[in-house]
Each structure stands twice: as structure tokens, then as C-alpha cells.
């Protein structure tokens, strides 16, 4: 009997376990992982608490929603789907959503960043200074634009949802919540259907919301609300009377011409009044087409530049492409796929509407067709989700349960809508592809192609999109040649139908890029990525966020391929523009900085990388808090840099703090924790504390082998470090064996022109020389030196070391000419004779 070894048979252990179970629920607010809730406010939507998140010790705001009608499975799934998208937003001017779920008593809650501040309309005691107010509102509009680009519309923008902190920075609250928390299972939007919120949000509602037509709500709805806020903040009044009865207020929103702002307050001026009036256009088509446009015009005014007229419509198309692409890449959970289907089907419906407009059909016919289509699409999505609902418990749906019925449903529900039908099959194809169910992905893509062949004669944008889906599936299932063929065809079709700057053409090019990557046709893949970046620059302008993103991507590809000079020159320019346009604290500016720092480091330009990295880290600490994941990762990177530049003593406390923080955040087995452990070891090594070094490294290596696999890049680094220590302890033959293994792994883990494989081989040669096996070293070192020269250039410490050692070895073996030829390459970088 092993009675005493079972925890549940020992009353003390069992009681401790019960206590632990109890501890994860906090009193009052029954949400796991959050302590010390203090009620802050009660409102139409729910109760807001301040609490402490146990895992991070940070203060958070917890909003528990009133539970009217939200218990149903469909409503709950909608909530989760929406919140999932909102939670992916990371912007300094948007209050972050960290978590969401259901309390023990069945109410929905979200956990958000805790922001101290006052509502926008209370921030200025009297009439606000014009320029200051305009600047704050431009920042708000930029943040709204950021969310739109990620598929999230606010739907309830008003001063009480915009909090301004003591530094004058605005923070937007409750993004997407109006939709997420809408209580009806039918398609009505919350803003105007939920009684509690109805009156509170009415003055900022758009005409399309006032009409009660949820199908027509889009990004421009938020633009309108921003216009009302702008008008209100500048003049202290609403643009029309909303104080009367409900019907009168709705009437005014729909019909009343807004009073121009400069008529109420002359110093607002003609230009700003024009900006406000354009945001407040009743017809969405006549408004600013995006919050970004509104922000840019305000900024132009503030900079003394002329405000701009309407922009090219290609701009919109590309924006949608990029948005869709991002979502497809990340789609793995069923909620995401469901929203993706909804989004895409809607997009495709819009696309059809546009086609019809181009054909200049009669106005009424068009409106009717659009309404019918929107209805069919929404019915389809609902039926699809309903069909997959396992019972009525409101549990998560499994993806496989959704996709099969969806395919059949598309055939029935969308029978007379070939555009939408082929789009749905295309989406299903990529959903299957994300699940790595390639046979099914190919099957769905072929169905989409069949429809396109039959209905559109194998031409047009529909055929192109379907062939792109097939191409992506073929590439991912390991048939990149066929994938490339399909994608190339798809591209030609798209160019023919809508031109080279169209959404379909860009998607086809992205699929071509992945196929080329897999075929290891690196140069062509790069050329293509370059083309995508250039096209974005051409269509959207060099300072558009998408262009910066595409160029940042390209720069990262250069870096990953070891083409450091190109990476550096591109990224320097991206960082400069991004800092200017988006602001230095914007997270979008930090990604290219990180890659740029790595590229500088790889070239040994620590003088450039050090101040850049330190500044980025400081900004992140201020913006996201010192314990945020991103700040901790930058602390790690900064400690690495200090350690590499002989400032190990400074690096140690930074690295230790980062390790503690990341372990708290992610647990001990996370990859970043593994990296930091390695780093701290390295720091101790440099500080001369070598005790037990080898033993610990070996354990790190074993863990990496086990959890990441031998050919993971991190494992290769750790193995390299372990082998180095073996060498340092004089155990050269063991070191040689380990470095050989490491070099093989590096060949598989890194691309052929990356600097890591030759760096490992250079380490191998050093140990071969120390072991007295010089002729073996002479076989390997020239090629390694060649590759280091190519990937890192002649200035890198690695290249210099390798070439110096090689030349010395050649001298010693009676080949002084060869040695001299190599040495000369350190000066010129030319090919030796």
C-alpha cells in the first residue's frame, strides 16, 4: 500500500488543495486570477472594478456586464468573437483588453488596462485651446484608424469613452463593446437597440445608426461620431439639436444640416469648420473615408499645410487586402474563423455592389439587390453557426463541426449569389489550410474554381481569388511548384480584371511569394516582396502604415537572409518615417527598430544600436509599464547588447529583473525565459564566475533539445555556447564533436546565406586548431570565412577573427601568398586570387 504517498489520502494535503482551489476565486468579484476588487463605477452597461492581476501584480480595470439577455449561446459567442478581435489591439491610445470570460454567476466580464484620467469633455475647464484640442482629437482619430485596420469598429465613440490622462494623452475605452455586448441575437446593433445605452449615446450617433440600419455601419460610422465630438469640443455645442424628444432628435441626426462650427465660434475658422463638416456628411460616401484621413487633415491644418480633398479609391482596396491577409494568417480559433467568414462574405458583397455600380445600374435596383444580399449573407453566417452548435449549452464550437456544414450551406443559401458563394468556398479553403487539413482545403478551393469557371467563364477577380486559395493550399501541403503555377495564373487574371494594384493581384502575389520561399527561390521571393512594398508605397504613399509594415517585413526578410546592408538602409528609412508619422511611442515603430538593432549588432555597429535600443526600452517602460512583455523583451535585448560590449556588470541586474518578470508572466518553460537563462549564464561567465557553468549549460541544452527540438534556432545557439565552454575548459575533442553536431543543425535551422552556420564552423575550427587538428581546420575554415565575409561584411568581429586565424594557419602551413590574399580582403572585400 502506498497510502501515505497519495495527496488525497492525507487530510492536511487535501485541505491545502481545497484552500488553493478557493484562493483562485476572489471575494465579491468571482474572477480567477484577480485580487482586491474595488468598485469604481456603475453604468448602463455594467459595473467597473479596479483589481490586481495576480500573475503580473498590475492594476487592471474589470468591467462586469449586466446580464440582460446575454446568456444565450449565440450572444455569448458573438461577445467572445468580438472581444477576441478587440484584445488583439495594442495601441498607446486605446485601452488594452487583456482578458475576458464569464464570472461564476454567469455574467460576461472583460479585463482592461487601468487608466487614470478624465472624460474628454471634462478635461478642459472652459473652452479648450484650439490647437491643443485639435491635436488630442487627431491622436484619437489615429488610434481609431489603427483599430479599423484590424477590423474593429467602435460604434459608440463619445467623450465619456475617451479619457485624457494628466499628460494630455487620450485613451479610448470600450472598443467594439457596443457590438460585442449587443443583447439581441438578431442583427440589430447595440448602440441604438439597447435601451440603457440608447439615450446616453444618441447625440453622437450617425445617420445610418439613427435609421437603424446595422448593415450599413462601417468605419465611416466612427468618422461621423468623431465629427460630432470634434464639433462639440470646439464649440461647446452639438451640431444640431438633440435635446428634444427622441423622434425629433433622430430626425435631426438623419436630416438636419449641421451648423458650421465657425458660425458658433468664429475663431475656429473656415478650414477647421470644413474638416468638421466633411466628417459630419450625412452620406457616408461624402465623409472622410477613414479615420486616418480625418487625422491627416487635422495634422495638415496644424502644420499649416493645405487640407486635402478626397483620395484615390485604390487606397481603400489595398487597405482591405492587408487587413484580410493579417487575419487569415492568424486564424486558428473557431471564433476567428467565424468572424473571418462574416467579414469576407460582407467584403465580397461590397465588391459585388461595386461591380454593379460600375455598370451604372438603376439606383433602386442596386439598393434592392444590396439589401437582399446583405440579408442572405447574414442568414448564411447565422445558420452556419447554428448548425454547428452542439446542443444549447453555448460551449465552444469545434472548427471541424463548422466547416463541413458551412460548405453545404453555402450551396443552398447562396444559390443565386455566385460571387459570395465562391468567396465562401475560398475562405473555407484557407480555414482548412490553417488547420493543416490540406486535402479539404484543396477540395474547397476547387469548388470555388468550378463556380468561377461556370459563372464567370474562368475569368475575373472571383476566379483569381479561388485560384489563389488553391495555390496557398498546394504550397502548404508541400507542392509549391503547383502552388506557384496557380498563383501566377491567379495574378494574371487579377491584373486583367482589376489591374496590378488590386486586392486580388496583391493576394496572388503574396501566395506566389510563399511558394517561392518554399521552393527556395529566394531571390525571386525577395523581388516579389519588394514589389508588394513598392506597390503599397505607390498606391498608399510612403508614409502609410501599410507601406511601412510591408517595408518593415521586407527589411526583416533581408535581415533573416543575412543581407544586412540592405536590411539596414531600408529599416533606417522605415524607422525614421514611422517615428515621424506614427510617433516614436507607437508600437508599430518599435518592430522595425528591433530588427534594425539586430542588424547593427550583427555588423558590430554597437555604437548605433546601443542608444537606439536604450531609447526604445525607456519608451516602452513608460508606455506599457516596466513589467509588460514587450518592455521585458527589450530589457533582455539591451542586456544582451551591454554584455556583448563589455558592460556585463551593468547587464546583470537588468537581465535578472527581466528573467524574474518574464518567468512571472510566462512560467519557467517559455522560450524567452530559456533565452534569458542562457544570457545570465553568459554574463556570469564574462564576469569570471565559471563554477558549474558547464553542468548548467548541459541542462539548458537538454531542455532545449526536448522542448524545442535540435534544429530550433535557439537550441543551435545554446549548443554552440555549451560547446564553447567545453573548449574553454580544455576539453577540445568533446567541443569539436559538439560543434560538428551544432553545425549540421545550424545548416537546417538557418538559411544558406545566414551568418550562424559559418560562425559555428569558425568556432569548430578554433577548437580543431587547439586540439592540434589543424589540417581538418584548413578544410573547413576557408568556406566559413567566405560565408562570414558575405553575410557579415569585412568589418564584423567574426569575419576579422576568422580571416586572421585562417591567414595565420596558412602562414604556418607554408602558404604565405594565400594568407596575404585573405588579409587583403579584410580591407577591400574583393575576391582573392
Amino acid at each position, binding site marked *: 500500500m502506498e497510502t501515505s504517498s497519495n495527496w*488525497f489520502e492525507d487530510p492536511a494535503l487535501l485541505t491545502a488543495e481545497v484552500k488553493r482551489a478557493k484562493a483562485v476565486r476572489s471575494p465579491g468579484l468571482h474572477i480567477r486570477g484577480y485580487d482586491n476588487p474595488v468598485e469604481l463605477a456603475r453604468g448602463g452597461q455594467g459595473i467597473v472594478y479596479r483589481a490586481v492581476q495576480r500573475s503580473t501584480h498590475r492594476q487592471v480595470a474589470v468591467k462586469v456586464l449586466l446580464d440582460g439577455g446575454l446568456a444565450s449561446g449565440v450572444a455569448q459567442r458573438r461577445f467572445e468573437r468580438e472581444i477576441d478581435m478587440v484584445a488583439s489591439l495594442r495601441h498607446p491610445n486605446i485601452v488594452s483588453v487583456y482578458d*475576458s470570460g464569464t464570472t461564476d454567476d454567469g455574467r460576461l466580464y472583460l479585463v482592461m488596462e487601468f487608466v487614470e484620467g478624465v472624460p474628454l469633455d471634462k478635461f478642459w475647464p472652459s473652452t479648450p485651446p484650439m490647437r491643443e484640442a485639435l491635436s488630442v482629437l487627431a491622436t484619437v482619430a489615429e488610434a481609431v484608424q489603427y483599430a479599423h485596420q484590424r477590423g474593429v469598429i467602435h460604434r459608440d465613440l463619445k467623450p465619456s469613452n475617451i479619457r485624457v490622462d494628466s499628460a494630455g494623452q487620450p485613451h479610448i475605452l470600450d472598443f467594439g463593446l457596443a457590438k460585442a455586448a449587443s443583447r439581441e441575437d438578431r442583427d440589430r446593433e447595440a448602440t441604438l437597440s439597447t435601451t440603457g445605452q440608447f439615450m446616453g449615446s444618441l447625440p453622437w450617433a450617425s445617420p445610418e445608426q439613427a435609421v437603424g440600419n446595422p448593415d450599413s455601419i462601417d468605419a465611416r460610422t466612427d468618422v461621423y461620431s468623431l465629427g460630432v465630438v470634434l464639433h462639440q469640443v470646439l464649440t461647446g455645442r452639438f451640431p444640431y439639436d438633440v435635446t428634444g424628444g427622441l423622434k425629433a432628435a433622430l430626425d435631426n441626426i438623419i436630416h438636419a444640416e449641421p451648423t458650421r462650427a465657425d458660425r458658433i465660434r468664429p475663431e475656429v475658422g473656415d478650414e477647421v469648420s470644413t474638416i468638421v463638416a466633411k466628417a459630419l456628411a450625412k452620406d457616408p460616401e461624402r465623409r472622410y473615408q477613414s479615420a486616418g484621413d480625418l487625422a491627416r487633415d487635422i495634422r495638415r491644418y496644424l502644420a499649416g499645410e493645405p487640407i486635402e480633398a478626397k483620395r484615390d479609391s485604390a487606397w481603400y482596396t489595398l487597405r482591405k487586402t492587408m487587413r484580410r491577409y493579417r487575419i487569415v494568417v492568424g486564424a486558428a480559433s*473557431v471564433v476567428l474563423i467565424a468572424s473571418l467568414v462574416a467579414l469576407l462574405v460582407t467584403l465580397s458583397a461590397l465588391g459585388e455592389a461595386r461591380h454593379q455600380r460600375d455598370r451604372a445600374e438603376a439606383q433602386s435596383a442596386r439598393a434592392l439587390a444590396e439589401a437582399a444580399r446583405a440579408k442572405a449573407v447574414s442568414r448564411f453566417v447565422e445558420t452556419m453557426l447554428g448548425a454547428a452548435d452542439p446542443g444549447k*449549452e453555448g460551449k465552444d464550437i469545434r472548427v471541424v463541426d463548422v466547416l463541413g456544414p458551412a460548405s453545404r450551406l453555402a450551396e443552398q443559401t447562396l444559390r443565386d449569389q455566385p460571387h459570395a458563394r465562391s468567396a465562401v468556398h475560398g475562405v473555407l479553403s484557407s480555414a482548412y489550410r490553417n488547420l493543416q487539413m490540406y486535402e479539404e482545403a484543396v477540395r474547397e478551393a476547387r469548388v470555388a474554381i468550378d463556380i468561377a469557371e461556370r459563372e464567370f467563364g474562368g475569368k475575373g477577380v472571383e476566379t483569381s481569388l479561388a485560384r489563389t486559395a488553391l495555390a496557398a493550399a498546394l504550397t502548404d501541403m508541400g507542392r509549391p511548384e503547383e502552388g506557384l503555377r496557380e498563383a501566377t495564373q491567379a495574378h494574371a487574371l487579377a491584373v486583367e480584371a482589376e489591374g496590378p494594384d488590386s486586392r486580388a493581384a496583391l493576394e496572388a502575389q503574396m501566395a506566389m511569394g510563399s511558394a517561392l520561399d518554399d521552393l527556395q527561390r529566394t531571390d525571386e521571393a525577395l523581388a516579389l516582396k519588394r514589389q508588394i512594398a513598392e506597390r503599397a508605397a505607390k498606391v498608399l504613399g510612403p508614409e502609410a502604415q501599410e507601406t511601412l509594415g510591408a517595408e518593415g517585413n521586407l527589411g526583416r526578410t533581408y535581415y533573416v537572409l543575412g543581407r544586412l546592408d540592405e536590411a539596414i538602409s531600408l529599416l533606417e528609412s522605415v524607422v525614421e518615417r514611422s517615428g515621424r508619422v506614427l510617433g516614436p511611442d507607437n508600437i508599430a515603430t518599435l518592430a522595425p527598430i528591433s530588427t534594425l538593432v539586430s542588424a547593427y549588432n550583427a555588423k558590430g555597429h554597437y555604437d548605433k544600436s546601443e542608444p537606439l535600443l536604450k531609447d526604445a526600452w525607456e519608451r516602452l517602460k513608460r508606455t506599457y509599464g516596466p513589467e509588460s512583455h514587450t518592455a521585458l*523583451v527589450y530589457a533582455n535585448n539591451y542586456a544582451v547588447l551591454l*554584455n556583448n560590449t563589455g558592460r556585463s556588470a551593468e547587464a546583470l541586474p537588468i537581465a535578472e529583473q527581466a528573467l524574474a518578470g518574464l518567468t512571472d*508572466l510566462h512560467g519557467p518553460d517559455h522560450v524567452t525565459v530559456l*533565452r534569458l537563462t542562457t544570457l545570465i549564464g553568459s554574463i556570469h561567465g564574462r564576469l569570471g564566475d565559471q563554477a558549474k557553468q558547464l553542468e548548467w*549549460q548541459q541542462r539548458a541544452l537538454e531542455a532545449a533539445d526536448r522542448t524545442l527540438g535540435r534544429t530550433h534556432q535557439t537550441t543551435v545557439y545554446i549548443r554552440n555556447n555549451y560547446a564553447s565552454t567545453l573548449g574553454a575548459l580544455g576539453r577540445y575533442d568533446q567541443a569539436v564533436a559538439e560543434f560538428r553536431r551544432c553545425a549540421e543543425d545550424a545548416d537546417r535551422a538557418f538559411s544558406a546565406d545566414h551568418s550562424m552556420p559559418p560562425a559555428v564552423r569558425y568556432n569548430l575550427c578554433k577548437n580543431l586548431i587547439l586540439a592540434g587538428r589543424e589540417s581538418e581546420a584548413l578544410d573547413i575554415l576557408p568556406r566559413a570565412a567566405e560565408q562570414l565575409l558575405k553575410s557579415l561584411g569585412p568589418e564584423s568581429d567574426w569575419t576579422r577573427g576568422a580571416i586572421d586565424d585562417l591567414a595565420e594557419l596558412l602562414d604556418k602551413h607554408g602558404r604565405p601568398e594565400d594568407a596575404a590574399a585573405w588579409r587583403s580582403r579584410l580591407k577591400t572585400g574583393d575576391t582573392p586570387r
Partner: protein
Amino acid sequence: MYAQTTTHGTLLARLSGGGDSAAWREFCERYEELIRSFARRRGLSASDCDDVLQDVMLALTKAMPGFRYDPAKGKFRSYLKTVTLHAILRKSRQEPAGASLSLGDGSVSRAIEDETEDTWEAEWRQYHLRTAMKTIRAEFNAADLEAFDRYGVGGEEASAVAKDLSLSIDQVYQAKSRVLKRLSQVIAKQVEEEG
């Protein structure tokens, strides 16, 4: 004797028969929180945890039809752990672009504590406890449960608890030991069945 309607063994047998969707639903309900909180403790975000859950369930859909139930070996538990761990690792590898380690820094490191086993075991204990508590709640009256909770777990004075609940002090002692003993029995049975 026990309030649980479906035993773990029966459930596995139904699953290995394949195609029993009610069994799947029950299985998901049972293990969802275990998988989720294990993933959570290893640093994944809520939506990543959803993905992990999805991954695990997909893997099991494929594996279960041929799964051999062998109570002697404790196979299922370690199998589920392995599948979950793989799903988590796949997720954690999708690193943000910012996390880069500089090239070949040629020296030392300290060990990484591998707490995987501990974490899994802790979550597994909590899973059994939660499941058993459901049974217990159906078997005891509210006063006994509250007495157990406040005196046995919360460490309040027995006399104060007795007064609040209109029980004798002896009844409070008894409630504590009876609930604890029954809890131990229920968990023992669950563990035995689990294999």
C-alpha cells in the same frame, strides 16, 4: 454508490468506439478547464489557450478511435499531458518579432528549471478536486458544506461558525471530518477509474 453518472472508463470506452458526439461533449467539458489552466500557467493568453484547447481536441479526435484503455498503466493522463504540452509549445514558438538574441555569444548559461511535471500535477489535482466537489455538493447539506468551508478550510473559530450556522460545536467538527473523508473517497475512486 457514487453520484457521478459516467465514469472516466466508460467515457473512454465510448470515445474509442468513435462517433459518439455526446461522449465528446462530456469529455470536453471535463477536461477543458484542466487544459486551459495548464496552458494559462505557462504564459499563454486567453485566445491562445482557446487554440491550444482546439488543438488538443483535434489531436484526440484523431487518436481516440484506436486508443486502448489500460487502467494499469496510467496511460491516458500522461498521453493527455504530452498532447497538451505539444500544443502549448507550438503556440509559444510563435514568438513576437521583438525577441531576438544576438549572434553566437560564446559562453555560459545557468539551468532552466523544468517545472512542467509539477505544474501538470498541480492542475491535475485541482481538476480532481473540482470534479469531486461537484459530487460532494449534491451529497451534503448547505450548513455542513459551509461549516467545512469556514472552519475546515478558512480556519475560523469552530464556536463562531457553530453560532452562525445554529449548529453545535461537535457538529461543526463532524461536518469537517465527514466532508474531508468523503472528498478523499470520491477522489480516490476517480483516480482509480482514470487509469
